[in-house]
């Protein structure tokens, strides 16, 4: 049914961004709820996109016992549709987990990754997680930036601690954390593979923005010493 109709790309980009913000604002205090909702949204999008893709290419019959074919389809055709390029590297580790690298991930291209812009001096923050030198939940103010990548100095009551930006939450965040945003494309990949009968879990890791690595684990990983079968 594709009649070659087109819309502006900026419209899609804005839709996704604002959808993410809307969901994020709704569950602001509940990181898990945000992640779950965004991932689920991504999942739906991924399923729907893959179904459209498969409609146009009926010859692509995939066998369930070869998840590698599905992953390759993902890295080429699905990536082209969803992220306008192909992936830069695909490898599989010893546990049979696929690691997909996109060095220039579309969604991170427009997000600033400058610590100074995301976390301006004087921002009031809450420290999350343990092991930061202060109890979780301690509040403080950003007073400077450390030499380390994405590390800030936070002044809390009587002390100054060096904390990774992964472990702070700003009180009035204007910008969504890129890590949070990536729940959507992770969901998209999970949805896309689900649509071709390959159940997986997906995790995204930001390397050096805009470089992202997606770790895709298929559910039925074969045990290391499978009887007599050679895996390739």
């Amino acid at each position, binding site marked *: 049914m*594709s009649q070659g*109709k*087109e*819309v*502006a*790309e*900026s*419209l*899609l980009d*804005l*839709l*996704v961004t*604002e*959808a993410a*913000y*809307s*969901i994020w604002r*709704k569950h602001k205090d509940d990181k898990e709820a945000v992640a779950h*909702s965004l991932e*689920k*949204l991504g999942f*739906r*999008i991924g399923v*729907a*996109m893959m179904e*459209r893709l498969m409609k146009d290419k009926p010859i692509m019959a995939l066998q369930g016992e070869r998840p590698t074919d599905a992953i390759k389809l993902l890295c080429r055709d699905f990536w082209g*549709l*969803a992220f*306008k390029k192909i992936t830069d590297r695909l490898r599989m580790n010893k546990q049979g987990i696929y690691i997909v690298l996109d060095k220039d991930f579309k969604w991170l291209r427009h997000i600033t990754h400058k610590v100074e812009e995301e976390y301006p001096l004087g921002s009031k923050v809450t420290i999350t997680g343990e092991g930061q030198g202060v109890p979780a939940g301690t509040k403080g103010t950003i007073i400077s930036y450390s030499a380390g990548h994405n590390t800030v100095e936070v002044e809390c009551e009587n002390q100054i601690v060096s904390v990774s930006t992964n472990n702070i939450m700003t009180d009035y965040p204007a910008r969504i954390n890129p890590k949070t945003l990536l729940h959507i494309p992770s969901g998209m990949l999970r949805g896309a593979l689900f649509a071709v009968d390959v159940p997986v879990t997906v995790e995204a890791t930001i390397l050096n923005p805009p470089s992202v690595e997606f770790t895709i684990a298929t559910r039925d990983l074969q045990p290391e010493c499978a009887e007599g079968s050679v895996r390739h």
Partner: protein
Amino acid sequence: MQKARQGERAFEKMEKISAELFVVTYGSLVMQLLEDSEGKVEEVNNELYSIGYKIGVRLIDEYLAKSQTQCRTFRDTAEAIAKVGFKMFLGVTADVRNWAEDGSSYSLIIDDNPLTMFADLPDNLNNLWYSNSLCGVIAGALEMVLWKCKVQFHKDQLRGHDCTEIRVSLVEQLKEEFQQEDD
């Protein structure tokens, strides 16, 4: 009509993607919002509007940069939205009809709403304005050029009506915040 030609030219300048991609994303969003709101349809209508509004506020820059339309009156904006704005971003045009006598409101009639390409509205969702984000986009964009408007769906073919109609009503014309110069 001159505006139609402007619309086409502006559309040519845009980076484009397949409409299907956009449409399935929008549809997924509607479904996710419905799930999150546990069936509170009015809440979803508002959320769709709100998301659209924020899109409109940001979209206007690209519109102004690429469209080269000059709108001096409220009347001008109607054709600009229908023939240029719609075309540039959605690839389709709308019709302007049913002007109020005092010129303060009009309808946008959309013959071929791309958003509803694959959508089907079940009976229990008959209060949903599926494409409500469109209203938000129009309202947000207009407010950035100082036309504060009420924009809402009047009819939707998805609901079984005979057409898809958005009503745009002028609330007030806003003033630029820093218009006065120091003496």
